[in-house]
Every structure is written in structure tokens, then in C-alpha cells.
């Protein structure tokens, strides 16, 4: 390839989900740096920060596709931003690389999904929780499609299991007044708490549950864990080290995943960011997505989205998340499941894992779901 190929990087580093956006941006930048070292100027990023403004996402994506000649955009964190950007990507026949865990019920030809949908995070999480903690959870979430849909699915899983949802409450993004919800939780005594809050709401909630557990042992993590599907290593210092210790989170990747690939990756990240830097799943996923995208373009000799997609579906490609194969129909990556327990050092101890699960974004296999095959590792 003679010409430089431009790919768009579209992440917000400010706003309610700033921690996640900064991590994603760091992961993408790190991949670009590595690509420069190995491939020179074959790939050039066009980086735009929409600062959590939906209109700016649209303007940014339009500029990338129309003015800069990008055919690939790695980006968007929220489903709102993704849904806004997709029609533009379709119009320009581009490819959007979306790498966050999301609520599913989407499979777009112009998107590659590497972040996981509910059968890759929520379903195995509940398979683990229900036999161990019970089937009377309390559901909380951001007043937004992620919270609504995750809690709606959780309610179905609980009803299928013959259980009962003891409460379901929402807070606006960035709202930190969690006291009334925590009071209600104390009175209702759930088996566990599904936390679909985002950012500052989530941090305030975890701190309040910590205080509740201190005065009432029924709410210590070992008795009534708070479980999430999107908490990142980079967020733990904002919650406060030790504050959320013992709480659980599902993810395709944790800093602590013990694979040779991850050991190499961690050494590379440490050389750049220092050995204190914990790698989060969004950092790893953004990094893996940029690398997958760029390497497929280089291998294909073109940035034609069809050619790139065909390569990604032809054979698994090694990534820090493990070998990644994109299903040509769902456009989703098969992803491993890890269950992490927050430790005092700002990381997650992996307490259960499952090998790569094929994505089922419309949950067509749910009624005929095979029995639990979770491998408990500690």
C-alpha cells in the first residue's frame, strides 16, 4: 500500500463517562504508536474528542468520513452516541468499531462489535450469582438505555429462575444522591445488587454500600455483593482503594488475566505508562480494535470495509483479548467471560472464567441455553 490510510478515533475524554473515554483513548493512542513503530506512516489516526456532546459526535464522524477520507472509525462509548453515528457510517459505507460492553439487540453490517452483549456478560454473571447468593436481587441503573435494558433482562432472568426482583431504581447520569436507594436496599434485604450506574453515580453508590456493610454485616460483599458489567480498573482509584473491595464485575478482560499474551502486553504498557498503570478492559479493547482494524487494512491492502470484514471473519486473529474472530452474521466478536472480585490494590482478582462465548445479540439461544459450564478458578 502506497498511500497512508486514515482511521478515525472518536472518544470523549470529558463528561459523565470521562474515565472510560480517557482509558479508551489511551488504548487507541498506544496502538497507533505501536503501529507507527512497525508500519511507519501506513496508518494515520484522525483523532476527535466530542466531549460527550452528541452533536459533536455527529460532526466529528462526518468530518472523518467526508473531509478526512476515513472509512473506519474506532469509537463511541454510549449506545446513544453509537446509534447517532451509525447512519452516517452507513451512508458513507464505512465501518464503526464499537468496543464497549452494551445491551445487545443490534447487528449492523457497518459495525464491528468487540465489547460484548448480554449473553457474554450478564447471562454468565447471573448463572454464577443465582446458585450462590439467591434469586432476589435489587436492580439499580443510570436512567438511560443501558440501565433500562440490562435491568429488564435481569428481571427476565430472575423470573425465569422463579425469583423476585426486590427493587428497581434509576438515577440521572452524574447524580450522586444515592441515600434513599441505599435505605430502600437496607430495608428489602436483597440477595445481591446489580449495579448499572455509570461513573460518579456508581462511585457514590459503592461508597454508600461500603458504609452500609460497616454497620450491617448482611450487606458486606461476601453476603450481598454489588455486581457490575462495566466497571474498569481506572475507575477504582476514583471510588477509593479498599472502598469497593469484594464487589464483583464481569468483563472480557482484566489486567490480572494470566495469559502469556497479557504478560507481554502488560510489560509494554508498563514501559510506556509506568508499572502502576492498571490496564482496563476498555483500554485493552480499544487497543485491540485499532490493531485489528489497522492490521486487517494492511493485510488486505485496502481499507475497503467489505475486504476488511471478510478477513476478520476468515480466521481468528491474535489479540490481547485472546484470538478474535468476527461472526459474519452478527458482526460481533466471540469473547471470553471473566468474573473479577475487586481487591485492595485497585485491581480485580479473577474468581471464575469461561472460554470465548459466541455473541447472540438477539438472545435467540436463551430459551435453549446449555447448562452452566463455568470453571471456578479460585
Amino acid at each position, binding site marked *: 500500500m502506497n498511500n497512508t490510510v486514515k482511521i478515525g478515533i472518536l472518544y470523549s475524554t470529558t463528561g459523565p463517562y470521562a474515565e472510560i473515554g480517557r482509558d479508551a483513548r489511551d488504548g487507541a493512542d498506544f496502538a497507533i504508536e505501536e503501529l507507527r513503530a512497525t508500519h511507519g506512516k501506513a496508518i494515520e489516526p484522525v483523532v476527535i474528542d466530542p466531549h460527550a456532546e452528541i452533536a459533536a459526535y455527529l460532526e466529528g464522524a462526518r468530518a472523518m468520513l467526508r473531509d478526512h477520507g476515513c472509512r473506519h472509525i474506532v469509537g463511541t462509548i454510549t449506545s446513544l452516541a453509537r446509534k447517532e453515528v451509525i447512519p452516517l457510517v*452507513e451512508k458513507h459505507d464505512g465501518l464503526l468499531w464499537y468496543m464497549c460492553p452494551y445491551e445487545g439487540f443490534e447487528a*449492523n*453490517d457497518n459495525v464491528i462489535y468487540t465489547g460484548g452483549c448480554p449473553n457474554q456478560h450478564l447471562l454468565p454473571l447471573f448463572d454464577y450469582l443465582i446458585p450462590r447468593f439467591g434469586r432476589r436481587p435489587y436492580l439499580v441503573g443510570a436512567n438511560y438505555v443501558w440501565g433500562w435494558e440490562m435491568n429488564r433482562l435481569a428481571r427476565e432472568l430472575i423470573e425465569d429462575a422463579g425469583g423476585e426482583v426486590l427493587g428497581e431504581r434509576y438515577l440521572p447520569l452524574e447524580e450522586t444522591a444515592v441515600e434513599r436507594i441505599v435505605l430502600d436496599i437496607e430495608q428489602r434485604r436483597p440477595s445481591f445488587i446489580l449495579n448499572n450506574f455509570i461513573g460518579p453515580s456508581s462511585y457514590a453508590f459503592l461508597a454508600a454500600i461500603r458504609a452500609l456493610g460497616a454497620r450491617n454485616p448482611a450487606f458486606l460483599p461476601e453476603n450481598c455483593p454489588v455486581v457490575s458489567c462495566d466497571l474498569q480498573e481506572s475507575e477504582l482509584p476514583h471510588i477509593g482503594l479498599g472502598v469497593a473491595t469484594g464487589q464483583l464485575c464481569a468483563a472480557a478482560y482484566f489486567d490480572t488475566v494470566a495469559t502469556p499474551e497479557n504478560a507481554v502486553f502488560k510489560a509494554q504498557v508498563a514501559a510506556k505508562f509506568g508499572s502502576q498503570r492498571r490496564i482496563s478492559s476498555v483500554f485493552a479493547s480499544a487497543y485491540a480494535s485499532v490493531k485489528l482494524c489497522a492490521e486487517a487494512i494492511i493485510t488486505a491492502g485496502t481499507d475497503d470495509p467489505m475486504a476488511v470484514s471478510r478477513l476478520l471473519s476468515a480466521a481468528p486473529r491474535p489479540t490481547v483479548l485472546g484470538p478474535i474472530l468476527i461472526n459474519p452474521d452478527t458482526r460481533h466478536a466471540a469473547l471470553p467471560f471473566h468474573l473479577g472480585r475487586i481487591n485492595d490494590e485497585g485491581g480485580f482478582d479473577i474468581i471464575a472464567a469461561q472460554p470465548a462465548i459466541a455473541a447472540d445479540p438477539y438472545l435467540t439461544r436463551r430459551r435453549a441455553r446449555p447448562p452452566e459450564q463455568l470453571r471456578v478458578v479460585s
Partner: protein
Amino acid sequence: MRETPNFTGWRATILHREDNTTERLTRQLKLIGFQVTVQWQPLDATDLPDIILVDADQGWDGLLPWSDENAPRPLVALLGSEAPGRIAWAMEQGTSAIIAKPLASSAVYPALVMALGIHRERKAVIDKLNHLEERVRLRPLVHAAVERIIAERKVDEELAYTILRNCAMRRRMPMEQVAASILGGAEPMPEAG
């Protein structure tokens, strides 16, 4: 909140000339769990699939084996045209959702869920309407039975009606049926009070 629809194993038929639209639609339907047939000829009335998607731009009368808007299966119109005549045709066939052409894959699942929901609601309304029509049709019997009770028990109309209603409640039968039984002599004349 309604439960997540699960279309796994359902049969869908696309009535549309095979082209890029049917190809993409087939892919999306399979993803959602359907077994898909594409054809551009009238549907067999004796072997209807679970859901039907029809090209409303070019569909003709007789493509669907029914003649009014009471479609026996959920029907989705694939519509690129804005011509009122084509929209009217789609409605006359009993369409309960539209997927606009050119096809956006994100339009498919919502349209199917809505078509199914509206189809079920329509069917429930029709069933209820039939039931009520039957009762209205039999209303003269109730009136006749009330007249008979007034004559035989020497009570006013209000009390006669109450007697008949209490009798129906005791027998756990609709009033129309009790009235018919009384008039036909199968049921003894109920006592007053």
C-alpha cells in the same frame, strides 16, 4: 414490561423479488432466529408461515391468500414508495408494521416485534367483538325472559331483571343462555328474591 420476544425456530416468508434487499433481510431474519423463505408468487393458504414480509411497492391483490385486512398472520410491509395507493394496498392486506426501503438493518427487529404485538392485539379485539356481537344478538331473549318473569311472578321489571341475573350467577352461565333455557322450558321459572 413485555418479555423479550424470541423468534427462534419461527418461519418467515418474504414475498419479494430476490435482490439485495431480500439478501440483507434474510441475513437479519436468520440472525433473529427465523427460518426464511423468499418467493415472488402467491402464498399457499394451507401452509402459512409464522410471519410474512411483503413488497408493498409491487405487491398485487392475490399475492396474499386473504381478501380483507384481517390477516391471519402478522404482516410487515416493505415499502420504498410514498404513493398513497401503495400505502393503502399495504393497509388493506392487514399490515401491522412497515420496514422502509432501502433497508436499514436496525429497522427489522423493531418492526417484527411491533407487527406481532399489533397482530395479537387486533386478534384479541376481534375475538372480544365477536363475543359481544353474539351477546347483542341474543339480547331479545333476555328481554323476553324478563317479560315472562314479570308476568308469572308479578314483579316489576327491575326486580325481574335481578332475578334473572341472580339465576345466571348461581348457574355460572351467561344471562342470554339462562334466558334461552327459561323460555325453552329447560330451566324452571326462578323464584322471586
